[in-house]
């Protein structure tokens, strides 16, 4: 918070262009990102187990993952009281971050649950 906002305010009079640099609390942003990763990882694990129990195979499972992530995104946006810009610096943070890492967890638990329920 300190470094960025201070440099912004000191250069405010010298040039107009630096006023466009957004200032925000980096600590709070990091905490928010941690919450996002937590939610996404948990939801991809649960989604993987559900997909495994339902017996999805192939492309259906990946479509299911997209669906789960979309629902999670909507939930996170609702948690941010639909004012994303006061909690994150861009929309990609809430929509895309943690997507690929979650996919790995999803596939792991998907195959795990499918093997337990349908194969053994």
């Amino acid at each position, binding site marked *: 918070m300190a470094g960025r906002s201070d440099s912004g305010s000191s250069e405010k009079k010298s040039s107009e262009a630096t006023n466009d640099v957004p200032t925000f609390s980096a600590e*709070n942003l990091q905490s928010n990102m941690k*919450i996002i990763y937590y939610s996404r990882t948990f939801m991809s694990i649960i989604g993987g187990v559900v997909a495994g129990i339902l017996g999805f195979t192939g492309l259906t499972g990946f479509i299911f993952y997209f669906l789960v992530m979309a629902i999670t995104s909507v939930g996170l946006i609702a948690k941010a009281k639909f004012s994303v810009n006061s*909690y994150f610096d861009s929309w990609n943070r809430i929509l895309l971050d943690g997507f690929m890492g979650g996919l790995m967890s999803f596939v792991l638990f998907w195959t795990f649950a499918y093997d*337990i329920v349908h194969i053994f």
Partner: protein
Amino acid sequence: MGLGFAVGVLGVLILGHAAYSTIQYRGLLKIMEEEFSGPPMNVVLELLLAFLFCIWAALSVPGKFLPINPDSEENRIVSLPDNLDFMIFNHRAKVSLSEIGLKLKH
């Protein structure tokens, strides 16, 4: 926090029960020599319920979002530090600069 965590544990337990029901259903199908086409209705309902519980847990357990804007309500500094008695506002620059002839605003 506590309620969300409990709901999450409940959701995972329901998931486990749904998995167990599906295993039993598979066993039944094997005895009746039928093919598995899809999970039974009560399993689907259980999964839906567990999924909703887990969404609730995933959104409530990690904590609240903190506002990042410097001008938002929570980030504004409204309290003064506790050691106000020990703050020093007079220093040597005031004397030396006034001797030279520069005037400082008070």
